[in-house]
């Protein structure tokens, strides 16, 4: 981590590669939902990235990572609890017919479509609603049933992953 703080990309790649399964297993230990655990593990990697300056090289890395993972899991559980309190199941007559999609995924350039398909479902949905359908953050968040902040985070992760996937496809 100290090398990563100094800008060593190889060390950082190795570190994140080792941390991803470690963090995923930490989160899985607290959550039964495997797909949510993978989402949270990616949130944790993002937090580690943005807060890497808060790690002090003379201290153990493990408690630092565990605390970030624990906080991310607790935050997710709180958001879920708030969401459950706020929402109620729709009655049949309240479900409207789906609106026509202004830009069906089939019309996207094939590399972009492939990259989009490779994203986790939650990220793909966020990117699709914002960039393909052109909805506002508030509207997209309402449609997915999460907060605008959570939607932006999902979309941000999706953009990062898309950039990486498209870069890999470039000749």
């Amino acid at each position, binding site marked *: 981590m100290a090398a*990563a*703080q*100094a*800008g060593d*990309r190889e060390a*950082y*790649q190795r570190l*994140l*590669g080792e941390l*991803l399964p470690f963090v*995923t297993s930490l989160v899985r230990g607290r959550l039964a939902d495997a*797909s949510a655990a*993978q989402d949270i*593990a*990616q949130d944790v*990697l*993002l*937090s580690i*990235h*943005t*807060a*890497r*300056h*808060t*790690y*002090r*090289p003379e*201290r*153990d890395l493990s*408690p*630092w*990572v*565990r*605390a*970030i993972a624990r*906080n991310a899991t607790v935050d997710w559980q709180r958001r879920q609890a708030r969401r459950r309190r706020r929402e109620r199941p729709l009655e049949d007559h309240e479900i409207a017919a789906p609106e026509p999609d202004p830009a069906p995924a089939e019309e996207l350039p094939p590399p972009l479509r492939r990259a989009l398909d*490779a*994203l*986790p*479902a939650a*990220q793909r949905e966020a990117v699709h609603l914002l960039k393909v359908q052109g909805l506002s953050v508030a509207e997209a968040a309402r449609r997915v049933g999460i907060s605008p902040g959570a939607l932006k985070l999902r979309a941000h*992760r999706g953009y*990062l*992953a*898309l*950039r*990486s*996937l498209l*870069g*890999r496809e470039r000749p």
Partner: protein
Amino acid sequence: VSDDGGRGLVDALVRDLAPVRPLPRLRVVATGALLLWALGALAVLAAFGSRPGTAVLGAGAGASAVALGLGVSGFAAVIAALARSVPGRERDAGVAGVAAGVGLLVALGAAVLLAVAAPVAAEPAPRSADLWCLGGALLAALLPGALVAWFCGRALAHGPLAVALAAATGAAALGALGMLSGCPFLDPRHLLTGHAAAPALGAVLLTVPVLLALRALRPR
């Protein structure tokens, strides 16, 4: 698909990597906050035509308990705010939070007991002295409060409201102690309304500005 997403994220984060300087140690920031508190308190007392001293310690056990409680709660709440902003230091934050709570209880409890036991002083402080001392405490809280808010904002404050509350209360308690050290009025009512009440006033008035600072400084 998710593995691809994870690997894609790792690749993107590695590409985004830029060198960073680790945040300073907690003890360095805490020492800095104490120095700024001393500077701020000296400046405010000088502006009010007063000087710090130890008269409060000679004014009886009750007044000393108020001063001790303010000092302990101020320092401990500042440590709690700093520690809660660094992942992995939650235990330190918890211990400091408990110490801050005990300090506040001691300060308020001693002030209330004094006011109840001796409600009328021979030479009561003028009402305006309460406002001066409370205002001075908040002014003296600004410098250490700003340093703590800067550190917590640049770090990863989990539960920003609790962090802001601890920072605001702690800085105000330290400010109140600074004012108490130069206060010529040590009657029981003034100890309660002009000094022991300052942390609560600081919590009410300073928590929101600190919270806004935390949000503005949050790393993205």
